């Protein structure tokens, strides 16, 4: 089961990476901008 989950996780990551690589310059900038803030989301959720 955990092997299936791991494979699914890896596939999802690869799919996301491919989608990112194929996206426009504008989308890439957007994603990068948002990713920088992701680490704060658990804190932001509670404030």
């Amino acid at each position, binding site marked *: 089961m955990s092997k299936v989950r791991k494979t699914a996780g890896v596939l999802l990551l690869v799919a996301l990476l491919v989608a990112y690589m194929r996206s*426009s310059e*504008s*989308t890439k*900038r*957007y994603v990068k*901008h*948002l990713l920088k*803030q*992701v680490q*704060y*989301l658990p*804190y*932001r*959720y*509670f*404030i």
Partner: protein
Amino acid sequence: MPDYDAVVIGAGLGGISAASILAKNGLKTLVCENTGRVGGCCSSFEEGGYTFDIGASIVELSWVIDELFEKLGKKTSDYIDFIPIDPIYGFMTADGKRFSYPVDKDATKKVITEFSAEDAEAWDRFAKHGSEAINFAFGKVMTKPMMTFSDSLMLSIENPKLIKYLKYMILNFESTLCSFFTSDKVRASMSLQSYFIGLPPALCPGYIAFLAYSEHEGIFYPRGGMIEIPKGIAKVFEEYGGEIRFNARVDKVLVENGKAIGVKLSDGTEITSRVVVSNINAKTLYLEKIGREKLPRWAVKAIESYDVSIPAPMIMLGLDTAPELDAHHTFCYTTLEEMNRVWFEDYLSKKIPKRGFMLISWPTHADPSLAPEGHHCLNLVTFAPYELSEGDWDTIKEQYLEMQLDSMEKMFGLKLKDHITVAKVSTPKDFERALLHPRGAVYGLQNDIVATAFFRPRMRSRAIKNLYLTGASTHFGGGVAPTVGSGIAASGLILKDI
């Protein structure tokens, strides 16, 4: 026994709206305002016989204001005289083209046809999406708190259209616009709206793109200047026994055992209350008015993680003649790329944009009484950094004025210099000093999608009990309608809790 049921810090739209509902519901309510007038960013002042607006220059989604007045048991038109604005925008492009978008959707379609027949068809689809997205998805949540996942789940169940339009919270503004329109000219003409929440098209959430449609459902200017909106609300507040103390700066929120118990003014006066409502920037509230030492560590980390929104230097001009413009608002621009470049190349490198874009508002077009007969007022708004790589705002004011007037003349052929009778520049530093907005921020906290809805500071604080927040730092962010909506939502929570 506390002095008041509720003390509100700041008489901006969020504060005065919340206060008015609390007073209507019998709560003894005091508003402490640092300046001598109501409205904060949505206000006006007089100089040399002209009435200039401080910030906001138009109202869209005016039904939110109607909802507030309804909750107050009053009629908006008895307090505010809204003048419908048509056309919505005049446009001036660097290649000398001038055109305008009327309120009428079909008339706008005709204008778009001149650029691209394909985009004219796309306009119909955009308008249909926009109408649904604004009226049934995003608009509906504007007056409701959205503090948790379950709040948003409940709101999605109530408004299933929210789910349909969720993808526009994931796409950016630019991609949203480009998914409808192909012509560069059309895309550029609808790119200004991203800066209405203080972000360039590349970083702004996609759903904001639909503002370019929602304006076609009607935009308004209050007769007498933008201050007439908060003045109208404040009048109802006072009719219900509410009290406003002007020139009363709150220096501290009094906190005891993790609970807000009142405020301390800059003259040392302490006022106690059952709840404290903040209408000021959430970063200032938590880090300065409460203080790190009174906050849990996670709260400090959360609030420090937000950027404040972009500043907007403004030039206010009194003219001895009518300007050669076509509408209440004129958008002077070049391309959509340029709208992004201003951010990525100028703003982030602390440079004042030399080309860029400009929004000109011409309030005397709608309401001639704002200036002496035959004279006119203009506000020129653009965006620029708070800190500058060269010089300081206080020393370059004159230079900035000259530069902007020259660039308007050279790029867009707009000659104003010979007709100026009054000229005032409000820099980000002036804005900060006047309204105590940190770094001259115009829309509270930066409105990234990851600082929106339940990722924006809650209206009912979790860090400090009996503390409530309204205004641009809370869900739904900046704007006249959203901040009035935040006042409705926050007061609803207080009435439930108290």
